[in-house]
């Protein structure tokens, strides 16, 4: 109570026009961050308080967020920012603990993905005391306000994390309704939360758990038969699925067949990559200028030239890559630096459009 009053008046003082004028042109945060990364007028930062390893290639980070964190609903995710090699990277991770954890901490569980820069980094380098940036919780993959219908939860691999938050929240709230979890893992060693799941489900007579080990003998991918004995009538259940695209597609197809798509909620963990990486030696793909809602077929020239050809007037200057006037946000796609031929990463980043050409589809915030 006193704490929140103090925090409220601190917020008001730091956010006041006077403090703003005194710290112009940088702003208050720029005077706080260098001394303690947790201090900020409005940015959410969290300090890692403890680290556990549910499996050999995953890590659970329990973190204490600063006073800007507004809480979350089980099933939601946060965008996590970490700095790797001096470069700020941002990825989404589901919160895996119950909505109202007893110690006020929040938890994410990160499985190291092949070629996953941030997930590998967090698995290797996360340390107690490390401070990371967070967004507020986001996402619609949440439980209904009041759970009445049976719940059918389906998880694949690290797709268990938002579902774990739901299970922990329901268990803590004493939910005793009918609930089933169908959980796909590669093998026994790959089963995140194995022990805790057995304990949770053992304590609830109406909860049923089935773990399918797809890479062990007798294992297979999702099929209708896997639901037998878990749910009486799928069309009457609230269905949640989270995991790889193939699993989500298969469950969606089944729901479409049964006509219960409206009761299906899904969370995709890997971006749906509709197009394979383009061949850097050919000119292909489409340019999407999202803010102005224009599209153009890539003709291989610089993105600036093509944006101008599409009737846009992005800011530009030297047109040779030295002044950075034309720097803008690329939200997806790979670009080639026209000076060095170097290819960019496919993620979101700032690029200089006067010296960048698209390699396949590219989306720009212009």
């Amino acid at each position: 109570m006193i704490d929140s009053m103090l925090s409220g008046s601190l917020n008001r003082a730091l956010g006041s026009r006077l403090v703003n004028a005194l710290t112009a042109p940088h702003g208050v945060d720029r005077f706080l961050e260098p001394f303690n990364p947790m201090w900020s007028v409005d940015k959410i930062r969290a300090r890692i308080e403890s680290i556990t390893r549910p499996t050999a290639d995953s890590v659970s980070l329990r973190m204490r967020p600063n006073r800007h964190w507004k809480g979350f609903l089980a099933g939601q995710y946060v965008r996590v920012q970490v700095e790797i090699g001096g470069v700020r990277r941002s990825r989404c991770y589901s919160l895996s603990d119950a909505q109202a954890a007893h110690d006020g901490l929040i938890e994410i569980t990160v499985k190291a993905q092949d070629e996953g820069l941030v997930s590998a980094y967090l698995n290797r380098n996360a340390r107690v005391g490390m401070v990371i940036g967070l967004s507020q919780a986001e996402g619609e993959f949440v439980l209904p306000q009041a759970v009445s219908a049976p719940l059918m939860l389906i998880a694949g691999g690290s797709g268990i994390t938002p579902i774990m938050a739901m299970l922990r929240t329901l268990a803590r709230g004493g939910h005793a309704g009918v609930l089933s979890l169908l959980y796909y893992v590669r093998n026994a060693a790959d089963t995140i939360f194995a022990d805790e799941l057995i304990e949770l489900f053992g304590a609830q007579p109406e909860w049923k758990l089935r773990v399918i080990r797809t890479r062990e003998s007798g294992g297979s991918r999702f099929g209708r038969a896997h639901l037998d004995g878990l749910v009486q009538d799928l069309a009457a259940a609230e269905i949640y699925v989270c995991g790889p695209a193939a699993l989500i597609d298969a469950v969606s197809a089944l729901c479409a067949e049964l006509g219960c798509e409206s009761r299906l909620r899904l969370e995709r963990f890997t971006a749906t990559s509709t197009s394979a990486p383009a061949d850097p030696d050919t000119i292909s793909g489409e340019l999407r200028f999202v803010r102005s809602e224009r599209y153009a077929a890539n003709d291989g020239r610089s993105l600036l030239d093509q944006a101008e050809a599409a009737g846009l007037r992005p800011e530009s200057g030297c047109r040779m890559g030295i002044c950075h006037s034309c720097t803008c946000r690329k939200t997806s796609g790979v670009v080639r630096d026209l000076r060095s031929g170097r290819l960019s990463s496919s993620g979101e980043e700032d690029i200089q459009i006067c010296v960048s050409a698209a390699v396949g589809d590219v989306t720009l915030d212009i």
Partner: protein
Amino acid sequence: MARSKSLSTPRNPSSKLPGKAAASVSSNPMIAALSASQIEAFGRELDALRERVLADLGERDAAYIRRIVKLQRSLEIAGRGLLQFGFLPPAWLGGVAALATSKILDNMEIGHNVMHGQYDWMQDPALNSKNFDWDTACPGDQWRHSHNVMHHTYTNVLGVDRDVGYGLLRMDEKQPWRPQYLANPLMAFGLAALFQYGVALHDVEFDRVIAGKRSWRDAKPVLQGVWKKVRRQWLKDYALFPLLAGPFAGFTLAGNASANLIRNFWSFTIIFCGHFPADVQTFDKSELANETRGHWYLRQLLGSANIEGGKLFHVMSGNLSFQIEHHLFPDLPGHRYAEIASEVREICGRYGLPYNTGSLARQFGSVLRRIAELALPPRSAMLPVAA
């Protein structure tokens, strides 16, 4: 924001990208002495050097700039804190020293370099060239145009690069002499003392407005942007912090003004040493036609001069003491210039190109001599004189 274009046609980037040869035709003897293929090879060597540094950017660079930012913020807090007790002479002197150093670091090693995009690769909004603004009268967005675009693209091209004389001074003998230039030394002193306002008004292009080459309608929004920024600076330095000191407001105000003045003289000195010591070349507009990347590198080299000094000196000059390296690679982090300077010098040597460097005393002495000499009408009738 409305911008007037000094050159009507945008330059074609492809003509400057490596791989396209062009004949070496230049009115500059240093450039004319090299063949087109030599110029291209020179450009390729510099490109390779740039790529090598880019590939190596990482934690070390991030840690460096954050350390400088932390030092600057600490100095600013200390300086402004001490100046609240400006009635005590040691506090006043210490406060002025800390605040002046803070402003110099903020403007040069942080602001100038961050706004060049030297740290854009970090993807940190606090160190992003587009968002950054600095503790001077000049609004960041205008600076990015007048400096990054006009000065760095068209370095030392007379009539285009407005850093040649700031529309006030005669800094090159090819600028026709006029009686007003008798005041060259006086004007230079005034510009140095008020340097932040000189820089701020750079993009308004007053001289061109007065000469009727630029309309008031184009200049007005730019001027409004300057006024908005100046007001905020004045509010902070000359009203709020002094008022917080209550009865000692006068000491605080004088301290803040002194810190601004010290910063102004210092940045003027460093910046004028970068392009105006003897033997630094200027260029005609004709130089820009069909300029290749190698050619552009050459112009940057010939139009810049370094200042020698110790590590602290380089930090306090924002590494603009490595003006040559900065002009060749304006978006490489400044603290890297010292590491590549010997290699740049070696490359220049192999192509028989000069590498202009000297002590601060030598370079600034040379600038002052030039300011004084060019105040007087040319002695030779061969040189242009305004009708």
